[in-house]
C-alpha cells in the first residue's frame, strides 16, 4: 500500500511498452508495464521465456527507449546507459578478457570517472574481498570458473556503487550447486551494504529466495500479472513452498500444457 509519508520511489516504471524490430517482425516485448522500486529493494521480475523481462531490464539500463510510457530514475528520465545503473549479465564473457580481475573493476571505476588512481584500486580491492576473490585479484578472467567470473561481475557492479544494480539472470548459466551458493552470497552482500537491485529470473525458487518483492509477468506480450511480497529468509519451508505454489499457479494456470516444461 502506498502511503503519503513513504519516500518517493528510486526507480519508477510507468506504462512502459517496448517494441523492437527483428528482420521480419515488429515484436511487442512488453505492454504497459508499471512498477516502482524503493531504496534497498531486492526487486524481482519473474516470468517465463518470452515475457520481455530481459528487454525490460535493457530499457531500464538505457539500451533501448520505450515506445510508450517512461522510466524514471530518481525523478530523471532514463535516455541512455550510464554508470548509475550497473548491469550484471548472464554471459560469462562480460568481463574484459585483456584485464585482470582487479583491472576489470578499476577500469570500470576510472572509465566512468567515479574514481581515479589509488582510490580506484582501493575501492576495487574492497569489493573483490567482499566476493572472496582476494587471491585471484591478479588473475585473468579465462583462468576463472563460471561462478568466479559472475562474482567478479557482481563486485564490479557493486564497486561502482550505482543507484541500482541490474541483474539479468546472472546465475542461470551456473550449475545448481554453484547457483545456490551464489544466491546465498548475494543475500549476504545485501545484508552488508543494502544496495538496491533489480533482478530478472525465470526461476520461481530463485525469485522467492532472493527477492523481497516479486513482479510476475505473463508472456506474448509481457504484461504484469501480479506484484507480490516474498517471504523472509527465516520463513518456514512450508510457507516458502506455499508461495512458490501460488506463483506457479498464477503464472501457469491457463498454460499448464504448453509451459510446464519451462
Amino acid at each position, binding site marked *: 500500500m502506498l502511503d503519503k509519508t513513504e519516500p518517493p520511489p528510486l526507480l519508477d516504471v510507468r506504462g512502459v511498452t517496448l517494441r523492437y524490430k527483428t528482420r521480419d517482425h515488429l515484436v511487442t516485448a512488453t505492454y504497459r508495464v508499471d512498477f516502482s522500486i524503493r531504496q534497498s529493494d531486492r526487486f524481482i521480475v519473474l516470468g517465463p521465456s518470452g515475457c520481455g523481462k530481459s528487454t525490460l531490464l535493457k530499457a531500464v*539500463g538505457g*539500451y533501448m527507449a520505450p515506445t510508450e510510457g517512461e522510466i524514471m530514475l530518481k525523478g530523471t528520465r532514463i535516455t*541512455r*546507459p*550510464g*554508470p548509475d*545503473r*550497473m*548491469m550484471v*549479465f548472464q*554471459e560469462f*564473457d*562480460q568481463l*574484459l*578478457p*585483456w584485464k585482470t580481475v582487479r583491472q576489470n573493476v578499476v*577500469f*570500470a571505476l576510472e*572509465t*566512468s*570517472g567515479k574514481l581515479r588512481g589509488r582510490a580506484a584500486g582501493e575501492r576495487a580491492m574492497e569489493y573483490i574481498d567482499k566476493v572472496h576473490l582476494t587471491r585471484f585479484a591478479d588473475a*585473468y*578472467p*579465462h*583462468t576463472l570458473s563460471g561462478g568466479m567470473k559472475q562474482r567478479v561481475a557482481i563486485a564490479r557492479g557493486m564497486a561502482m556503487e550505482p543507484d541500482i544494480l541490474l541483474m539479468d539472470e546472472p546465475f542461470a548459466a551456473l550449475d545448481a550447486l554453484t547457483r545456490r551458493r551464489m544466491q546465498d552470497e548475494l543475500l549476504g552482500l545485501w545484508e552488508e551494504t543494502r544496495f538496491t537491485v533489480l533482478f530478472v529470473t525465470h526461476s520461481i525458487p530463485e525469485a522467492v529466495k532472493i527477492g523481497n518483492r516479486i513482479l510476475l509477468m505473463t508472456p506474448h506480450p509481457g504484461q504484469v500479472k501480479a506484484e507480490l511480497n516474498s517471504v523472509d529468509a527465516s520463513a518456514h519451508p512450508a510457507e516458502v513452498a506455499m508461495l512458490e505454489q501460488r506463483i506457479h499457479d498464477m503464472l501457469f494456470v491457463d498454460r499448464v500444457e504448453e509451459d510446464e516444461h519451462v
Partner: protein
Amino acid sequence: MSDALLRPEVVREISGADEFGIVEKELTIFERLYNLGWVRKTGLLIVLALVWEGYARHLDNPLLVPTLTDTFQAWREGMESYVLPERIFTSLQVLAIGYTTGVVLAGILTVLAITTRIGTDFLETMTAMLNPLPAIALLPLALIWFGFGIGSLVFVLVHSVLWAVALNTHAGFRGVSNTLRMVGRNYGLSGLRLVLKILVPAAFPSILSGLKIGWAFAWRTLIAAELVFGVASGKGGLGWYIFESKNQLDIPEVFAGLLTIIMIGLLVENVIFRTIENRTVRRWGMQT
C-alpha cells in the same frame, strides 16, 4: 521395485600402489628430446644442409648450385663489407613506411566502416574488388604515377597491406560480443572511446592476424617489386641485391640474398609477432 531388478550391492577395497607395476615413470632422455619440436626441426635442417652440400659438391657447378659453405662465405663477406646491411636497411625502411601507412589507412577505414553504414559498404566493396588484385600488378601503373622512387614502392606496399588488415580488423570488430559492447556503454563509453577502449582490444586476435598477413604480403611484394624495379635514388634493397648479383653471375651472393630474406621473414614472424602474441592474446586466453 520388482524382485527381478534387485541385486546385491558391490563395495570393493582399492588395491595399494605396490601392487601395480608402474604408476609414473620418467621417459628416457632420448624420448624426451625427441618430443621437443625445435630439436626435431633442427635435425631436419641439418639433414637438408648436408644433402645440399653433398649435391653441390657432386655437381661442382657454382653457377647452378653453389655449396652451402660458399653461400655462407658470400653472406659473411656481404655482411662484413656493409653491402648486405645497407641493402637490408633500405628494404626495411621502405617496408616500414609502406606498412605503417597501410595500417593507419586500414584503421581509419574500419573505424568509418563500423560507425556508418555507407562506410561498411565502401569497405566491403573495396576489399572485395582490390583484395584479389596482387599488389605487384599495380607496379607498372605506380611507376607512371610516382616515377622511379620510394613513392612507387610505398604505393604497392600500401595496397598489399591495407585490404588484408582492414578486412581482418573489420571482421574482428563485428565479432565482438554484444555483451562486451553493452558493458562498455554501461561505463558511459561511446563513439571513438568505445572503439579504442573496448572494440580494439576485444578484436585484437583478428587485428593481430590481419597485421601478420599484411606483413607477409608486404614483405613478398617489396622483394618482388625491388627485383622488377631495381634501384631507387642510388640505393637498392634486398631484391636489387639479388638481381645485381645474378647479373654479375655471382650465384653464391644470390643464395646469400635469399637466405637473408628467409631469415628476416622468420625473425619477424617467430620473434616479433610471437612475442606480441604471447604478451597479449595468449596471456588473455583469447587464443590458444
